[in-house]
């Protein structure tokens, strides 16, 4: 059991929570994630550890309401308990002083890029960050990202805030600006990561992406999260979650993410209709 210590709504559909998990808080590194299971009937969902507080013994998670589990979590209150929290899982991000890095986050993916950005800055990199969302109200962690970067550029698809356009348009401008880029980190919706990888490939800029495959056990036991990287099958949970974006088969990932669309919809619908039966 892990208690919810604090909760903030970052936007209409994005929630941030600090949950009590002292051992995970002490151990976790940037890039790692936890598996949460809300209650006895719950499914196991992976969520990135956005931040941690060793003294308070808490980890921070951010999630978007996309289905039943996240909808249930969104209405949980401070003091409520999450039945199972397992982690830290996955390989930590390789943090070094590479020189100039560009960190790109899209939508709720900003929550995932934030701890990596912070760690890269602390390691001495010059960090240019680009965060984007569909519209202004969906931009999250702007202040945190500003603090973790040397320079932050915000974009919205509809132009309601910051630069009008996609994060990839801004990255193109940064590349065109001529300053050498040593590494790009891109985390967000699959089409965004694919676009960024396609953009950096001809320039030969190493591009790391973090994949959000469907998982069950998240310890290498089931293979639900398998992805193809450089033509080889990898498990996102134990071989990732970060991979070389130029090697990832994003179309396969997209297909596999759609595997339970119908059931997920059914489950969410049943939840929203206040199903009380058994």
């Amino acid at each position, binding site marked *: 059991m892990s208690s919810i210590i604090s909760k903030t709504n970052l936007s209409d559909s994005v929630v941030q929570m600090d949950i009590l998990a002292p*051992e*995970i808080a002490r*151990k976790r590194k940037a890039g790692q994630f936890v598996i949460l*299971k809300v209650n006895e*009937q*719950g*499914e*196991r969902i992976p969520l990135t550890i956005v931040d941690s507080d060793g003294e308070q013994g808490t980890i921070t998670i951010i999630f978007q309401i996309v289905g*039943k*589990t996240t909808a249930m979590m969104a209405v949980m209150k401070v003091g409520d308990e999450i*039945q*199972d*929290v*397992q*982690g*830290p*899982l996955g390989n930590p991000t390789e943090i070094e002083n590479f020189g100039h890095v560009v960190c790109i986050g899209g939508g709720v993916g900003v929550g995932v890029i934030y701890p990596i950005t912070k760690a890269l800055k602390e390691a001495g990199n010059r960090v240019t960050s680009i965060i984007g969302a569909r519209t202004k109200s969906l931009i999250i962690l702007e202040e945190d990202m500003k603090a973790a970067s040397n320079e932050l550029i915000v974009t919205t698809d509809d132009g309601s805030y910051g630069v009008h356009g996609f994060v990839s348009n801004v990255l193109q401008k940064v590349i065109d600006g001529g300053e050498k880029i040593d590494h790009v980190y891109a985390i967000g919706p699959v089409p965004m990561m694919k676009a960024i990888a396609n953009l950096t490939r001809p320039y030969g800029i190493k591009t790391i992406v973090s994949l959000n495959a469907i998982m*069950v*056990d998240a*310890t*290498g*036991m*089931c*293979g*639900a999260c*398998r*992805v*193809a990287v450089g033509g080889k*099958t990898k498990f996102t949970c*134990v071989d990732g979650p970060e991979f070389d974006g130029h090697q990832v088969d994003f*179309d*396969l990932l997209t*297909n*596999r993410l*759609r*595997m*339970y669309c119908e*059931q*997920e919809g*059914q*489950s969410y619908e*049943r939840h929203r209709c206040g199903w009380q039966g*058994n």
Partner: protein
Amino acid sequence: MTDTETKPKKEKIPRQAMPEQNPGDRVKNFDEVPCGYPPETAMLEAKRCIQCKKPGCVEGCPVDVRIPEFILQIAEGDFIGAARTLKETNCLPAVCGRVCPQEDQCEKTCILGKKGEPVAIGRLERFAADYERDQGAVKIPAVATPNGKKVAVIGAGPSGLTIAGDLVKLGYDITVFEALHKAGGVLIYGIPEFRLPKAIVEAEVDYLKKLGVKVITNAVIGRLKTIDELFAEGFDAVYIGVGAGAPVFMDIPGENMSGIYSANEYLTRSNLMKAYRFPEYDTPIVRGKNVAVVGGGNVAMDSVRTALRLGADNAYIIYRRSEVEMPARKEEVHHAKEEGVQFLLLTNPVEYLGSKDGWVTGVRCIRMELGEPDASGRRSPVPMPGSEFVIDVDTVVVAVGTMANPIVSSTTPGLETNRKGYIITKGESGETTRRGVYAGGDIVTGAATVILAMGAGRKAAQAIHHALSGSLQDDGEKR
């Protein structure tokens, strides 16, 4: 032999059948298939045992259950006494009575089997354990005075639970670290409800907790903490019983398409996560109409029978050898056939075909013939050129084996593994190349049976007790 000759001739009682759900009904539910002996049938079956002075059955048992003794108790109507006798050597009798391959162990060496049918030892074991539990008569035995020594057990599967039970009774302070959210290992995530009801596993784990075993779930050793950190926390010994949990895929074209599962995933979704009760439970599973399961072991049988219960119209086993070579228990193959599973033997998948959006639609297979015996002694299958054909499927479960998960060994300096990643141990004690670290079960042997993993746990318990009680005496002398 002389044992049988000196006894007066008994009236011949035939081996008693165990009632079970009929196939037409049971494919529509996940309830247990065999229903267990009623008491009078159990007593009748128990009377078949001739009480050999040198019982072959005990030699065939990896945990040395005192078989004639508990069977005599059943014959005399002392069912609770029989359960207690069982539990002295086997902490999971209700599990073993159901999933042990008795035909290859105790029942294989039963003297009655020489001329007729062996005593149904497994069914009797199950009967006694179930009787005790159903009567609410489970007694928590006295444990030794705490000896102040702490042992960490990694993995709450059959092996880990056995060593935990053995050592806690000897006075050790035992903590079991389980990666998943529920204890039981393969008994919980792998073996389906219709073969091993989860309430039984939960009862067995509760029994251990009442003995004083601490079980910490969601604890992935190797990630949350390392073995070095466990020693730093004050554990005197560590036992690794993490199983061989990583799935093997065949690496053929199309294997990552949607609708293709490893058996581990398919069974974990259905059993651990209870996806068969979706949407009451939140985890979904694909309810395929045409399901192919690749493999011929018990896991393949569990998968294909799960597929039928999830509503498959056609459920196939695709196996590259013939039925004789199938590693699954005969009983499981028999149950699968009764339930309508279609067996495509001497057949191997070579490629998966899919729709535009990446969902599997077919499996291209090739016919095989048996050639020369291979290293395992089984005749190795050889593809027959030009014999390819396609079966339409919407779901595939790959059940061709498992391999070692490196998550513990890769984070433990000094712990040596073999070429395949299994932990190297010295003989039966389970001692590894790292001082104070023991290992047993599938992570040492590769995928095997529940009872062999339990046997390894038992032997390691003795080795750890030997090593640590020696140091207990040393401590005493120092004081």
